């Protein structure tokens, strides 16, 4: 390329014209080596288990959201790079392909003009876009990001995108063949919890849940609606669960834990649920609080972010402790005091897992998830608004 030639000409001119003069008593006889240009870093195709995807929602410029790749074990340089996740978007991390996916909305003139909704396919190693799938209709759901607005199904070959106009539907996207398969209407129901091989479950405003099975073309094959199981008024469940295997553990605003087996075509509640219990120091009481408030370890323990100032309306205020629960024993087994007010938590899938806490002041702290010991802080060097955390599986 011309540009390379020009640069080389310049470099050659410099190298020939500008030879270093020897210095007296120079303790370093050899100058520092010349360094290559261009030089762009590349990430591994498989991210290490200490890495996470942090969704920077960037409230002060919502059009400029980011899916940040973060090494939680590297406090000096936690930020590894990012992919764009524009305007109330979502980010998905694949475990079967070296790809990330963002569901985004663009306007041709930043905040106005022609709207384009897309699923963008990103190369995990280069963080460059590999392609995009246009989403028709300008109906992609825009909300503060819930992971369960954008989920895989069919063994990560497809993605499901929530729509909200405020009519509710889900668009089925074939990621392998990069095309939209169609829409599933979901009146009165929201969020996506993959169930079975090729389907998903959604919770509905009447307190029921509906499990849908898709056919090979992505059309609705069958659906089963439960009796009301969700007391939205008095025991509402946070929208994002923690997975232990294929069991999704939800926590309610008042601290009830409920498990749903999503392995079959129809979601089924596991047992009867149980309470996190109380503790001293609550004013008026301890309740879960934050954005992504529940996480799981590979060992099957649940971690819940807890707010001592629990009351009606405190559920997004963040928390000052993480409580650890063994759902097999239906018992709390530890309390982890935090360095600051946390808003979202996630555990790495390392052999000895770490608890990662995004704080309300944008700081991200890392703890030993087994002992609860504070390990180090990533500072506020990752994201303006770290909204969700996604462990690398």
């Amino acid at each position, binding site marked *: 390329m011309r540009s390379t030639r020009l640069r080389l000409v310049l470099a050659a001119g410099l190298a020939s014209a500008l030879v270093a003069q020897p210095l007296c008593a120079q303790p370093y006889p050899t100058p520092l080596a010349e360094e290559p240009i261009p030089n762009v870093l590349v990430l591994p195709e498989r991210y290490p288990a200490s890495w996470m995807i942090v969704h920077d929602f960037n409230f002060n410029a919502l059009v400029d959201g980011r899916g940040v790749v973060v090494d939680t074990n590297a406090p000096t340089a936690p930020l590894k790079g990012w992919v764009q996740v524009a*305007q109330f978007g979502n980010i998905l991390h694949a475990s079967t392909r070296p790809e990330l996916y963002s569901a985004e909305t663009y306007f041709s003139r930043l905040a106005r003009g022609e709207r384009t909704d897309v699923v963008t396919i990103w190369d995990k190693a280069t963080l460059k876009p590999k392609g995009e799938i246009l989403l028709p209709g300008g*109906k992609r759901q825009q909300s503060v990001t819930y992971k369960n607005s954008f989920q895989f199904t069919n063994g990560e070959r497809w993605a499901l995108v929530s729509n909200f*106009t405020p009519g509710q539907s889900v668009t089925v996207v074939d990621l392998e063949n990069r095309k939209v398969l169609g829409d599933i209407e979901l009146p*009165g129901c929201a969020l996506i919890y993959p169930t079975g091989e090729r389907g998903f479950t959604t919770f*509905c*405003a009447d307190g029921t849940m509906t499990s849908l099975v898709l056919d090979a073309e992505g059309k609705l094959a069958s659906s089963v609606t439960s009796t009301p199981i969700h007391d939205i008024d008095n025991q509402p469940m946070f929208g994002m669960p923690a997975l232990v295997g294929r069991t999704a553990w939800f926590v309610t605003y008042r601290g009830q834990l409920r498990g749903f087996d999503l392995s079959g075509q129809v979601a089924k509640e596991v047992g009867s649920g149980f309470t996190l219990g109380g503790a001293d120091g609550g004013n008026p009481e301890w309740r879960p609080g934050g954005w992504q408030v529940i996480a799981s370890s590979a060992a099957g323990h649940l971690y819940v972010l807890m707010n001592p100032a629990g009351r009606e309306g405190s559920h997004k205020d963040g928390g000052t402790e993480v409580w650890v629960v063994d759902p097999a024993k239906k018992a709390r087994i530890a309390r982890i005091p935090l360095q600051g007010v946390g808003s979202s938590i996630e555990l790495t899938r390392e052999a000895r897992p770490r608890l990662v806490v995004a704080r309300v002041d944008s700081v991200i702290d890392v703890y030993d998830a087994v002992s609860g010991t504070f390990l180090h802080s990533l500072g506020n060097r990752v994201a303006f*608004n770290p909204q969700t955390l996604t462990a690398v599986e």
Partner: protein
Amino acid sequence: MAQLDKWTETLARGIARSSSRRSLLAWLGGTLTGAAVLPVLPVSRAHAAGAPGAAGEARPPITSGDPQDPGDRTQCDYWRYCAIDGFLCTCCGGSVNACPPGTEMSPITWIGTCTNPVDKRAYIISYNDCCGVSSCGHCLCNRNEGDRPPVRPQSNNDYNWCLGTESSVYNCSTAVIVGVAPDRR
């Protein structure tokens, strides 16, 4: 705009499916007379930790001048903001009930019931978003009393209500008096 009719239908269907079989108006009445209905836009964890009222920026007060409408409209604890979530338009070139120049007011939104501390009436407040201009960035405020998960959109303030507008890009939120609610039960 046709989407709004569909939404009405969706809402009706959702209500029809519900065990309580409430009508649209009954639903409105029920929510209005129950806990505050919470609408509109994004939680800020940067501010959520503070007590309601912590808007995060020192600024001179903006008041109505009317003793019947007390409080500082630049602060999150102003009475009309009992169910708001977003940047306060009062700090963005708009006012408590008007969008800034250059934006478009969302035609649909969610409403809350906020009690005026002086006249003790419960007012119905419509939190219309202002759309088509990028994030205001001033006076982020999030109060979640009565907020429920996205499964109940009409009670969830995480959705971007810049719907039915030319652009879905969110700028700020207003708090408009649209009526007086009956006494709380």
